């Protein structure tokens, strides 16, 4: 996997550039086969979920969060140096918000609370792998 492209996608996600993140990781996803393919797709779908949520497309957000979480689950607690366990817990709470939006309960969206993809240090990565 092209690490530079992957890191760029992570950076775009963390800057709240969810469409750009999806674009970057999509290019990578098209070229990737094997174990990382579903991982990338899971990240793309979570990113798209946030894109939809910020556009108040609750149906799109709900579906994408659900699909993304289902894919990322198998990679938890971490994969490719990215912490997933805490990230996914946070996404689950955003999924709940999107589901409430579907039934008309439109909550304030505090974008500062959107989780970041945390890059684990080597030591932390080794701890996860034990």
């Amino acid at each position, binding site marked *: 996997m092209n690490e530079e492209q992957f890191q760029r996608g992570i950076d775009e996600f963390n800057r709240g550039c969810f*469409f750009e993140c*999806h*674009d970057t*990781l*999509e290019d990578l*996803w*098209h070229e990737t086969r094997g174990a990382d393919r579903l991982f990338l*797709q899971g990240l*793309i*779908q979570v990113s*798209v979920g946030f*894109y*939809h949520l910020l556009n108040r*497309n609750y*149906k*799109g957000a709900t*579906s*994408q969060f659900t*699909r993304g979480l289902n894919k990322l689950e198998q990679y938890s607690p971490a994969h490719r140096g990215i912490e997933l366990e805490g990230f996914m817990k946070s996404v689950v709470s955003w999924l709940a918000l999107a589901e409430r939006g579907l039934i008309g309960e439109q909550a304030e969206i505090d974008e500062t609370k959107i989780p970041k993809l945390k890059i684990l240090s080597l030591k932390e990565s080794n701890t996860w792998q034990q």
Partner: protein
Amino acid sequence: MATMITEECINCGACEPECPNTAIYANGAQWEMNGETHDAISADFYYIVPEKCTECVGHFDQEQCAAVCPVDCCVPDPNHVESEELLFNRAKQLHPSKEFAALSPATSRFQKSA
């Protein structure tokens, strides 16, 4: 046609060039068939023209739009279930100058599951 694009579409356009029948159009774009132009079916998302979709029967073993869509928004339309025969006949009508071999697992998803 039994493939549709849902509102999860992010308008990235990955699907459009993959369609062998040019059945996919961008949101708001007019669509064309047999020299006639028609109003866009969707103003918000990419859309698939029902009259031009063959679920890739005759061309590939799976819907190419679905294969390249990272958000899985090209999905079977439960309200338009069409038979392999109907889809194959449509493919022949859409490509009158193309010679289609008998369907095989390489050119029809129906054959794969048979």
